[in-house]
Every structure is written in C-alpha cells, then in structure tokens.
C-alpha cells in the first residue's frame, strides 16, 4: 500500500521534489534529529552485518570463560571485548545480534499497527455512523488499559514468546493510529478535492485510500516513529518480565532478565543490554522529534 500511495502522489503532485526539499530543510535544522538518523542507520548496518561483525556466535558457550569482565578490566580478555555472561557467551556478539531482534520487532510491530490502524481508521472516518461508533468504542476499551499490562496479559493468553509479544504490542499500539487516521479522514472528507473526485466517479475504496489518505500521512509518520521506539521498549520490558523472547535468544530485554541475578557481581551483563536499548530508542526518538518538526505544520513555528 505504501508503494501505491507513493506512486499516486508522484503523478498528482508535481511539487513533490520541492516538498521533499522543504522537509529535509526543516529536518536538518534539528541537529539532534540528524544525529539520531546517523545512529539509527549505523544500527541498521550493525544488524545487517551482525554475522560478519560478531567475533563469536551469539549462543556459543565458552565454558572456560564464564562471567569474564570487559577487556579493560582486570581478568578480561581481548577475545571477549565486552566480557561474557553466566554461561560463557560473548556479550558483544549477543549485543550485535540483539540489534537484529530489536529492529525487527520495531519494523514488524509498527507495520502491523500502522496498516491495521490505517485500514480501521479510514473505514471508521469515511463511513461514520454506527460502524464508527462501534470501532471507536472498541479502541476506547483497548486504551482503557495500561498498554504494558494489556500486552502482558495478552502474552500470557497467547503463550510467552517473541511472536506473541509482537502481536500483543501491535494490538495495544494500534488504537493510536486508528484515532489519528479517523480524525484526519473526517477533516479531509468534505474538502473540495474529495468532492471533486467523487463527482468524477471515484469509488469508495479509491476515495478512501488514494485520494484522502496521502493527505493525512504526516501525523501518521510521526506516530509511527513513536510506535517504533515504544515497540522496542515494550518488547524489551516483556522480555525482562520473562514473557517476551525466550532464552537463549539474544534479545536485549531477555538478556537483562537473565542478567538480573548477577546484578551485584557482574555489572557488565546488566549495563550493556540496557545501554543498547537506550541508545536505539533515543536515536529513534530524536528522529521522531525532527520528523514532527518537519511534518507537523502546527509546530513548525516553535
């Protein structure tokens, strides 16, 4: 769907290049956002190249090297730069592979939540009436729970594991997209260009997704970035509570959960996975701020 809308906007909007330039201008104004972008790109590269970069396999256990500190501390070894965990796995390698999981979680969860949210939101906003009321009440119900609690219980229902955790998180993030899309669609649907398209004989589907939707994309993109970082955080939290990815998966939250028992003995097994989560989430949020400044006209002034 993203593809078709992009093509559509090329054909209907000759000033696309100008808009892109304007967007980049505002985005690059924000130094933090640019830093965030670079860090994020670096993380993507790390995730893709993890098998090449990692000195060891993420689950390889070195029985002679259990709980080694990072190389700069007494007792550390250069072959395990950031030390090893309780069963002798290389921290650095696990962290690098962990980037794969976190980005994967972010992409999948955001895609599910975004697609689902847009479809439901467009339907609610475009058709209105009882269907709209029903959909919005259901979204209210989902939003009435603290998201992490709902995700936790959902995972308990579905069974612990990464897939189920992603489904649960996507489900609790979705209502935000529904609300945004619906509000935007309702604001747009009586505009002149929509009426014109309708008079020209455009069908409901075309009107909903090809005419109206591309004009509501800005806030959705901002929300998607937010969801991306939320998904990573929530998945890590579920992993930490033992309900997300299951050991020995090198997911950062799960690594933290396994590391808890060593909290007072081996600071590195606790510190690094959390730092990795923080850096990733921070980079995405920095980007998100820049995107908001660039895409949300209301806030451009400030």
């Amino acid at each position: 769907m993203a593809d078709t809308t992009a093509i559509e906007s090329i054909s209907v909007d000759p000033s696309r290049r100008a808009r892109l330039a304007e967007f980049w201008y505002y985005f690059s104004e924000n130094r933090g956002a640019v830093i965030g972008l670079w860090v994020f790109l670096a993380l993507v590269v790390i995730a893709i190249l993890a098998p090449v970069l990692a000195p060891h396999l993420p689950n390889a256990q070195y029985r002679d090297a259990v709980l080694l500190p990072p190389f700069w501390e007494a007792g550390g070894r250069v072959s395990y730069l950031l030390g090893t965990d309780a069963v002798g796995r290389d921290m650095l390698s696990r962290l690098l592979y962990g980037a794969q999981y976190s980005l994967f979680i972010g992409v999948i969860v955001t895609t599910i939540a975004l697609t689902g949210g847009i479809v439901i939101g467009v339907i609610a906003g475009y058709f209105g009436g009882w269907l709209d009321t029903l959909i919005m009440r259901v979204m209210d119900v989902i939003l009435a729970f603290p998201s992490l609690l709902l995700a936790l219980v959902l995972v308990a229902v579905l069974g612990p594991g990464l897939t189920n955790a992603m489904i649960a998180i996507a489900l609790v993030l979705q209502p935000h997209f529904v609300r945004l899309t619906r509000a935007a669609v309702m604001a747009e649907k009586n505009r002149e260009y929509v009426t014109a398209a309708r008079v020209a004989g455009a069908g409901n589907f075309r009107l909903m997704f090809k005419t109206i939707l591309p004009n509501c994309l800005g806030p959705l993109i901002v929300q998607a970035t937010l969801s991306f970082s939320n998904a990573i955080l929530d998945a890590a939290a579920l992993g930490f509570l033992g309900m997300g990815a299951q050991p020995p998966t090198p997911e950062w939250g799960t690594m933290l959960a396994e590391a808890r028992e060593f909290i007072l003995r081996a600071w590195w097994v606790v510190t690094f996975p959390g730092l990795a989560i923080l850096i990733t989430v921070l980079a995405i949020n920095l980007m998100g701020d820049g995107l908001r400044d660039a895409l949300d006209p209301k806030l451009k002034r400030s």
Partner: protein
Amino acid sequence: MLRFLLGRLAVLIPTFIGVSIIAFSFIRLLPGDPVALLSGERVMSPERHAQISHELGFDRPMITQYLDYLGGVLSGDFGTSIVTKSSILDQFFVLFPATVELSVCAIILAIVLGIPAGIFAAIKRGTLFDQTIMGTALVGYSMPIFWWGLLLIILFSGILQWTPVSGRISLMYFFPPVTGFMLIDSLLSGQSGAFKSAVSHLLLPTIVLSTIPLAVIARQTRSAMLEVLGEDYVRTARAKGLSPFRVIGVHALRNAMIPVVTTIGLQVGVLLAGAILTETIFSWPGIGKWMVDSVFRRDYPVIQGGLLLIAGIIMVVNLIVDLLYGLINPRIRR
C-alpha cells in the same frame, strides 16, 4: 456542566462493559485447563475434576458466567483468587495504597522538577541550558525504566550502600497499617527512625517511576510555554513594560498550564504501567507486582479482577481530569 458530565458517562459505561467483556474473555481464551493446572503432576480423577470445575463455575454456559460475573462486580464482588482463595477486592485494597503512595510521590517529583525545567528551557530557548534540559528529558523519555532501576540499585544499594534493595520499610519497625500509606503510618507510629526508613525505601522506586512522566511534563511545559509566549497578549503585556517575572509567572504560565494539566492526567496510565516494572524490580508490594505474580501463577480470577479494577481507576481518573479541564477551560464544555 451536567450535560458534559452525562455525555462523558454515556461514553464511559459502554467502555466499562467492553472492558469487563475483555477481562472476562481472557480467562476463557487462556490455554490449558485451569483446573488441571491446580493439581500439577498429581493426577486428578475425572469426578474430582468435574466437581472442582463445578465449584469454580466453569461448567456453566459462557453467557451465564459473564452475567453472574458482571452482577458480582457491580455489587462489589470481584471473585476469589484460585491461589489464595481470598477475596480479590480485599487483596486489592491492601495492596493499592502501596501503589498509590509510590505513584503520588513519583508524580509530585515529576511536577516539581518537570514544570520549572520546562519553563526555564522555554525562556532560555535555544541556549545550551535549553538543549541540556531537553536532551536530558529525551533520554529520560527513551529510558527502559527496568534497566534504570537496576542501575540505581547497583549504584546506591550495591556500591554506595545508601539505600535498601527492596521493600517498603525496614523490618525493625513494626506498626499497624492505619492508612496503608507507609509514610503516614510511620509518622503515626511515633517510632523514631521509622519515617526515615520509609523514605529511604521509597526513594529509588520514586525516581525510577517518575522518570518518564518527568520527561513528558518537562517537554510539554516547554512547548506550551513557547506557544503562549508567542501569543499577542503576552507580547502586549511585555510591551506594556510589565516585569518579565510577572509576564511569565502570571500571564503566560496560567494559560500554558492547561495542556500541562491534561498531560499530567494522562500520566496515570503511564504510572500504572510503570508500576508493573518498578514494583517488580524493587519487590514493592503493590498492584503492579500483584498482577505480574498472578500472571505467573496463572491466577486467572485475579488477572481478570485486576484488569477490571485498574482500567476502572484509569477511566475514573480520566473522567476527573476531563471535568477539571472543563472547569479551567469553559470553551470545551459545549
């Protein structure tokens, strides 16, 4: 105002029914037979199984079960825990004050630090000060708080040995729970040192739980202030030669606070979600830990009742915030 209230209630009631349906159906969707789980490795005879199913009401039609449950909830009966066999509402009332105490302290800390930080950042917009504050706020906003809690434990409990690792008060102190709030109870007890001990136990969890709300409030205050400072009347006031303190303190702040109050209201859900992680890390006996424990113990009635109670609280708090908002800002009443 009454119409506004009725309007909100008209939305609230169907939502609550929806919440109860979701909370109810979770148990039925859970994999595995809860009765069989009760006995574990010990094989249960089919008769015994049927008898227990019957006692727990699992053998009746779904609709009947739901209506009974809803009826019970409306009359204040949230059922009994499979594990402890005690009333869920009673347990909730015992544990809830601990969560409230922690959440209230956290939100107070967030407000006390967040609002001034946001204001000053807005006034000094663009300076290093502003950038530092906002950078810190974004780090706080991006923080995996379960890790943050562990770091604080390593530093303050492990290395410096300043604060205790877990719990609400040292075991040395023992007094009856009067209010359920340890800070108040420790003062009422009159035992010397009790209050101090309660505070030192509360310190780290409060910092951890307040991290995200603090960041959100600081950011929201800053952008609301910036918006207001750009408005005509503030410029007018400035042009009239009013002191900057008066301009900001009286004119700008009052208007900037409207969105900030809403933001604070919205933090209730954030706090309760954060309480799940914070209470787990610090073994804080509140409802967040209660829910996590119940999920692991597969105590379905507690999960069900807890979901409903927590959602109910959030809905009520949001209603109150809406009403307050309506009072501050008469425009939206219509």
